[in-house]
C-alpha cells in the first residue's frame, strides 16, 4: 500500500515514517509539508492513502483533500489532528477516517486497512462545519489538477453543466454549481445574473451596450458581463457604495 505523509512538522512526519517502516505491506512514497505541496506530490506519486494533517500553514488539510478528490484516481484520505474538537465530531458524522496525534500503532493499522475514498460531498460537509473558504479553486485538466487562487478569479459563469472560472491567466471549467460557489465565497463575489458571479474587487463600472442592456466592466476582462434586469438596481447601489 502506497502512503503519502502530509504534516507541517518534520518530527511528526518522521515518527509516522518510522512507524510504517516497522509494519509490513506499507510503503511511504512521499512527504509534504503543506497542502499545495501535498497535491503536487500526490499527483506525482499516486498514493493509495494520504495521511493528512489538518492544521497546516498556507493551504490546510481539509482544502487539500477537497482538491485531491478531483483527481483521476483520488487517494483515500485519513485526517490527522492533535486536538480539534469540532473536526473530530464532523469526521464521525461523515464517517471519514481520522487519527489523533500522537498516533497509536494499532489505530494506524486499523485505519489504513479500513481506509476508503472520501467523496466530495463528505468533504464539502466537513468544510461547512469549519465554516472555511477554500483559498483555491481546482479543476482536472490534461496537465493534472490545476489550482487557481480565489483572489485571482474575475468572474464565474455557469453553462449547461459546468461553471467557467475566468482568472488572471485564462479560463477553467469546474464541476460545481454556481449556487454552492456563491454561498462559499459570498464575501468575494456578487451575483449579477442568474448565470454569473463577479469578483467585487475587480469591478470597474457599469455600462450599456448597443442594445441597451446593462453590462458590468471588470478589470483585465475585455468583454462586459451581462447584468440581468432584476439585479441592475442592487448592483448600482453596490457600486455607489464602493
Amino acid at each position, binding site marked *: 500500500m502506497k502512503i503519502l505523509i502530509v504534516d*507541517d*512538522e*518534520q*518530527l*511528526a512526519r*518522521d*515518527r509516522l515514517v*518510522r512507524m510504517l517502516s516497522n509494519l509490513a505491506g506499507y510503503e511511504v512514497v512521499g512527504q509534504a*509539508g*503543506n497542502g499545495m505541496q501535498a497535491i503536487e506530490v500526490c499527483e506525482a506519486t499516486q498514493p493509495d492513502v494520504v495521511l493528512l494533517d489538518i*492544521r497546516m*500553514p*498556507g493551504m490546510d488539510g481539509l482544502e487539500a483533500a477537497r482538491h485531491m478528490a478531483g483527481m483521476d484516481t483520488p487517494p483515500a484520505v485519513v485526517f490527522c489532528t*492533535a*486536538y480539534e474538537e469540532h473536526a473530530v465530531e464532523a469526521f464521525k458524522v461523515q464517517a471519514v477516517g481520522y487519527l*489523533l*496525534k*500522537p498516533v497509536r500503532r494499532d489505530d494506524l493499522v486499523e485505519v489504513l486497512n479500513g481506509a476508503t475514498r472520501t467523496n466530495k460531498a463528505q468533504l464539502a460537509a466537513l468544510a461547512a462545519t469549519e465554516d472555511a473558504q477554500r483559498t483555491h479553486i481546482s479543476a482536472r485538466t490534461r496537465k493534472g489538477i490545476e489550482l487557481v487562487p480565489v483572489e485571482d478569479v474575475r468572474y464565474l459563469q455557469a453553462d449547461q453543466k459546468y461553471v467557467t472560472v475566468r482568472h488572471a491567466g485564462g479560463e477553467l471549467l469546474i464541476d460545481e454549481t454556481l449556487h454552492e460557489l456563491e454561498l462559499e465565497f459570498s464575501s468575494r463575489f456578487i451575483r449579477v445574473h442568474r448565470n454569473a458571479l463577479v469578483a467585487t474587487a475587480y469591478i470597474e463600472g457599469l455600462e450599456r451596450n448597443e442594445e441597451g442592456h446593462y453590462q458590468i466592466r471588470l478589470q483585465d476582462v475585455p468583454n462586459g458581463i451581462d447584468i440581468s434586469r432584476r439585479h441592475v438596481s442592487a448592483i448600482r447601489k453596490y457600486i455607489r457604495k464602493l
Partner: protein
Amino acid sequence: MAATPNEQARPSRFIIPDLCNAPALGVVVLVGELLVLVLLFASGDVTWDGLALKSLYVQWVVLMSAGALCWTRPWVAQIGLAQGALFAFFIITAITLAVSVGADRVVAGSLDFGRVPLDWEAIARQLGIAAIITGMVLRYFYVQQQLREQEQSELEARIQALQSRIRPHFLFNSMNIIASLIAVDPDTAESVVEDLSELFRASLNDAGNQVLLAEELALCERYVRIEQLRLGDRLRVKWDLGDYPDRLKIPLLTLQPLLENAIYHGIQPLPEGGTITVTLRYEHRHVQVRITNPLPAGHFRSHSQGNKMALNNIRSRLNVLYGDAAELTAETAGDVYVTTLRFPFAGED
C-alpha cells in the same frame, strides 16, 4: 482589530440592593424604626406620642423611598454606578421634602399657606438629617459593591486563567513531539518533558502570584524551546531585554501567553515562518514589554476570538493587581501585530 483596555468593562449594577421583596422591606422598616429611636433619644422627648409621630413620619419617607427605588430599579441598573447613586440620593431627598411638607400641613391643620406659613427651619432640619443618612447608606453600599466586584473579577480571572492557560493544542502537540523524539533523540525528549512539567507547574499556581521577571522569562524560554522543536527554523525569536532591576516582579504567566498568541496566530499560519520580537524596557518606574509578530493575511479574522480571550484574561488579572495603572493593548501596525504590556514597578526596597 486593536482591542482597547476598557472593552471588558462589565455593565455596572445598581449599588442599592433589591428592595422589591418582603424580607428586604422588613429590614427597611426595622432600620427606619431604629432611626426613629435614635432621633427620639437625641431629642430628649422620649414619649409614646413622640415615638408614634416620628415613626409615622420616618416610615412614610422610608417606605416611599423603597417603593420608588424598587420601581425605578430596572432603569437605574442601566446607568452608571455614580449616576445611579446620585439618582437615589435625589429621589430620597425629594421624597423627604414632600413628606416633610405634608407633615407640616397635617400639624398645622390647614392647607392655607397664608394662614399658617411653612416651618422652613424644621423642614430644612429634616432634609439635612435625611441627606446625611442617605449619604452614609449609599457610601456603605458603594464600598460593599466594589468589594463584591473585586471578588467577582478575581474569581473570574482565576477560572479563566485555569481554562485558557493550558491550551489543549499545546499539550497534545507537545505529547506528539515527545512521542516522536523518544526513540531517536531520548535526551531532547527528556528535556521536553522537563520543560513541559515546569510550564504546567506554573499554570497550576495561584492566578494572582507574582514572580521575578527572570523566572517568567525562563518559563518563556522553555515554552519557546518546545515550540521550536515543532516549528523548526520557521520560528525565530529575538529577545531585546534592556536593563531592569533584579527584583522586578511580574504576575506569573503574563508574558508566556502573549508569546503563545504570537506563535499561534503570527508564525504558525505562515509557510515560511517569521520573527517574533520581544522588547523589554524599564523606565520611569514602569515596565513596558512589546511583542511583535507578523500578521498573516486573512488568517487573523478567523482566530481573533481566541486571541481576544487570552488578552482579556491577562487584562483582568492585571486589573486585580494594579487597577488602572497597568495596561495591555494590541494593534496592527503595517504588516505586524504589536502587543504592548505596561505595568508599574516602584519597589526598589
